[in-house]
């Protein structure tokens, strides 16, 4: 079933790719192949493969249970928030919080995860800033003025 769902998604994707390639306009000075034809070939191949996947699916993989799915989703949110906060809030705080959260998701111990967050944040900052010379701000810009 999983293969069929993924195959169907890819079929739609390949068709979308094909249709958007048809809408590309070839300029008058274009080479004989033009910008359209390679996308046509690739989307054609993708279409054949995804249909094969729908017709001949493999056995379903073992998907994570609901509890693990929630954990994975939480990890995803943590990573997204980290991506957004790095610029605004500086390196130390977001890194400490994000690594503590990820650590907690792997091993739920408040003490260990807080220690992981703290150690990682400080040690990585030292390595990146002073060892590799990256221009990282330790604290939020509005605090630094």
């Amino acid at each position, binding site marked *: 079933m*999983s*293969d069929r769902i*993924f195959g169907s998604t*890819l079929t739609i*994707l*390949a068709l979308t790719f094909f249709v*958007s*390639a048809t809408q*590309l*306009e070839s*300029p008058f000075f*274009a*080479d*004989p*192949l033009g*910008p359209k034809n*390679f*996308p046509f070939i*690739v*989307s054609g*191949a*993708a279409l054949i*493969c995804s249909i*094969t*996947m729908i017709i001949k699916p*493999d056995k379903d*993989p073992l*998907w994570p249970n609901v509890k*693990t799915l929630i*954990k*994975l989703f939480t*990890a*995803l949110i943590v*990573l*997204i928030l*980290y*991506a*957004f906060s*790095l*610029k605004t809030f500086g*390196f130390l705080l977001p*890194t400490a919080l*994000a*690594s*503590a959260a*990820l*650590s*907690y*998701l*792997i*091993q739920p*111990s408040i003490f*260990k995860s807080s220690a*992981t967050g703290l150690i*990682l944040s400080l040690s*990585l900052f030292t390595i*990146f800033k002073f060892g*590799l010379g*990256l221009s*990282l701000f330790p604290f939020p810009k509005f605090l630094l003025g």
Partner: protein
Amino acid sequence: MELFQNLALGFGIALTLTTLSLAIIGCILGTIIGALPGLGPSNGVAILIPLAFTLELDATQALVLMTSVYYGAMYGGRISSILLNIPGDEPAMMTTLDGYPMAKKGRAGDALVLSGVSSFVGAFLATIGLMLLAPILARVAFYFGPAEYFALYLLAFCTLGGIGAENQAKSAIAVCLGLGISMIGVDNSTGMTRFTGGNLHLYDGVDFLVAIVGLFAVTEIFVFIESRGKDSAIGVKLGKISIPIKDILATKWTMLRATTVGFIAGVLPGAGASLGSFLAYMSEKSLAKEKKTFGTGDIRGVAAPEAGNNAAAGGALVPMLTLGVPGSGTTAVLLALLMTLNITPGPLLFNERPEVVWGLIATLLIANFVLLILNVPLVKVFTKILQVPASFLLPGVAMVSFVGIYSLSGSYFDLLLMIGFGVLGFTLRKLKIPAVPVILGILLGGHMEVSLRRAMVLSNGDWTYLFNSYISVGLWIAAFIGFIAPIFLRSYLKKPTPIG
């Protein structure tokens, strides 16, 4: 004679303090990365590439550092295979079959030393093979025009799933995904934007480093959270380390045979180190008179896969350097490094930038001795690394990946894209769709399209031009066989499962 001159040039570069230090650092980092369960050479090199740029190294130095990490990780992969029964990376899987039983019998130290020596034999001889074979292949590649290159890329994509691929449609889908992503951005020939959806961030296309770090490192984070880091505990006691000279001498022919098999497997496009170790193990087993001892801690079962996978790692550098077509996942990542450094691998590299190629080869020869020291007398130090809990290690990997990518572009869009690739990688892994073809598609898609377009310009749109030379016809046939063969060979090449 020319070879010695080139080697002298190479050693001139390799023996400078900076290059040598980088090689040693790379070897140590690589062994650590290889030893950690789940973090293989591809992950290791992928995470470290963005950071290598921040060091502002020149092309040779960056390549030396990363290739040392690659070699180191190939050596280190066996440590957790033997002690924990968990391969540090996929090629080390075959080492679990006899390495772990040997360790359980109280011979963990012997298994580590024997496999360390086998790794050295495999990697060292493969580096010599690389030195001899690469210039010859580079000369052949001079005859390659756009039609031949197009056929070569096709061959790489068709064989990428490898002979061990479980489902050819899935490997092909992965290639198409990669090729599709490679077309996003401005089309260089016409200046038109394609498939950007009007998003300005995508005008430059998808940076392959973002895709690589996402597909390897971020995916690994999700996989670890799913498995809740069960894999981090020392399994068997190591005991005293001594050199099992009797075992080493008894397996000398095994190592040499495995090196030959592994090297050939590595040179073949798309086959890589996993196939190298697998074929080395299976051929040794089929040659043995007494087969029952395999899987119960046979010394040949430890020596063969390690010599095989390390020889394949060296072999995989041959097509990467001479043709620009990687033979494995990690060499695909190294190709990304070269391309980011504005170096186009291929026959011209040997003429135009000999210092890069020969500096690299000389460093690899030296790196092997460094790795032998790290992996035989100092192996006890690296086994301590297995005690680092996953709950500390994985957040660390995540943060290093983020900062690496962020330091390249300073754009949160790239970070989000990287997370997106991480989710894609997790889904692909669940569905048993290989991620390496996606990477290679992104890396080589542009080149493949350019080759096809050039061929069409030269022939004025005549498609038969693609089959115009013996080389291109040969490559098309090889591509066809490479794609079809696994379907028939699958039942013969069933992998043995490790003991529980």
